[in-house]
């Protein structure tokens, strides 16, 4: 039973990674690609490491996995936010105008 749950979590994580890669290849500009990256990649890493945690149980390796999951849940959205803010001033998005001019006032 636990093995089935491990396999389910593992391959759903691989599924979300694959969806993120398809989004990275197919979406038209950097903001849409960030949309594909931040959500699906965070969820994919979380699911794969959770399946390994369920497979291992609470040992020293399991504690390391818990730390990695917490750290990735904090840092991956932060990195996406910072890349989006850095691209906002200079990048021409897929409609052909500057993202800053379209995005209203700030």
């Amino acid at each position, binding site marked *: 039973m636990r093995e089935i749950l*491990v396999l389910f979590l593992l391959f759903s994580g691989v599924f979300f990674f694959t969806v993120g890669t398809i989004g990275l290849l197919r979406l038209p500009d950097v903001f849409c690609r960030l949309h594909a990256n931040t959500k699906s990649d965070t969820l994919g890493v979380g699911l794969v490491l959770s399946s390994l945690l369920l497979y291992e149980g609470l040992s020293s390796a399991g504690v390391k996995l818990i730390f990695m999951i917490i750290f990735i849940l904090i840092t991956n959205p932060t990195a996406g936010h910072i890349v989006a803010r850095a691209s906002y001033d200079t990048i021409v998005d897929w409609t052909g105008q500057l993202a800053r001019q379209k995005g209203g006032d700030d």
Partner: protein
Amino acid sequence: MTETAFLIAAILLMINVIFCVYRAAIGPTPGDRVVAINMITGKTIAVMALVSFMYHEELFLDVAITYTLIGYTATICVAKYLELKRL
């Protein structure tokens, strides 16, 4: 059987990494390259953890933790350079 599943998942993730490298090579703006490299970092962390459980080597998990920290720092540094034009 579960370790065979780990091997299959690691192979699928490395096929995904090839497509991310393609986006990092052709990406028209620097932001695209940073996003692609961030994704490669996430997939590499997952592959390192899977390989650690395939070979029963707990040492690889330490490498994965370090790679998490280094990847986050690299993304922050490149984004700051893009925004401020200096480090």
